[in-house]
């Protein structure tokens, strides 16, 4: 199997989440990864793009969400980049802690970590956050 890459640049709108998910599903489908893994990738991508659109770019039309997809013999890797101010992922409260269970929000990063094998963030000092997510075959 060869390495395949693909890039997308999408507007900072809510409908971008479904557009990105469809594009990633198409890419992942061609990668030959299992259905279970594809489901997890779909969940994680939707959450990552939601965060980029809402919290990173704050739905600013002049900012884009840039997605890089890479399929290799070992894994599928997805990076989602926004142009927001960044945040500290370690400071996000655990949504499964007793005091947070009935909160209406705050589960997106938890889902990304639950469904992917690796998730890390690169916060650029000049602005912009990239979340890199990897799912092994």
């Amino acid at each position, binding site marked *: 199997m060869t390495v395949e890459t693909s890039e997308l640049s999408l507007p900072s709108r*809510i*409908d971008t*989440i479904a557009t990105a998910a469809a594009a990633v599903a198409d890419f992942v489908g061609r990668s030959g990864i299992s259905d279970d893994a594809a*489901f997890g990738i779909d*969940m994680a991508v*939707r*959450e990552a793009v*939601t965060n980029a659109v809402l919290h990173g770019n704050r739905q600013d039309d002049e900012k884009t969400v840039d997605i890089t997809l890479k399929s290799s013999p070992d894994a599928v890797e997805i990076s989602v980049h926004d142009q927001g101010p960044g945040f500290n992922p370690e400071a996000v409260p655990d*949504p*499964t802690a007793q005091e947070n*269970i*009935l*909160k*209406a*929000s705050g*589960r*997106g990063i*938890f*889902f990304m970590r*639950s469904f992917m094998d690796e998730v890390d963030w690169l916060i650029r000092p000049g602005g912009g956050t990239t979340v890199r997510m990897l799912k092994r075959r």
Partner: protein
Amino acid sequence: MAELNINERQAGDVTVLDLSGKITIGEGSVALRAGIRRLLEEGKKRILLNLAGVSYVDSSGIGELVSSYTAIGKEDGGQLKLLNLTQKIRDLLTITKLLTVFDVYDNEAEALNSYK
């Protein structure tokens, strides 16, 4: 077609909402929120959500289920219960530790009886 379709029916004093589609950020979550709000305005506080036709829920949708649960729970005699979870939704509620928060049923008659 709407992202989330909601069909309402009455079983005694329990209102059953048959949901089909996706409960995701944007249209699906908003539709569920509006549906629950309307029922509460009509004084319908015993609500059973039938999720058999729900193919997908994201973190926003899980959040909306939690919001519905807490909003209905604040009403005197208000109760929200869940019916017919798909395996994927059950998995999401399990990892978020919400499965033990919600009253969950696989059988509609049992669910309806539980309100008595």
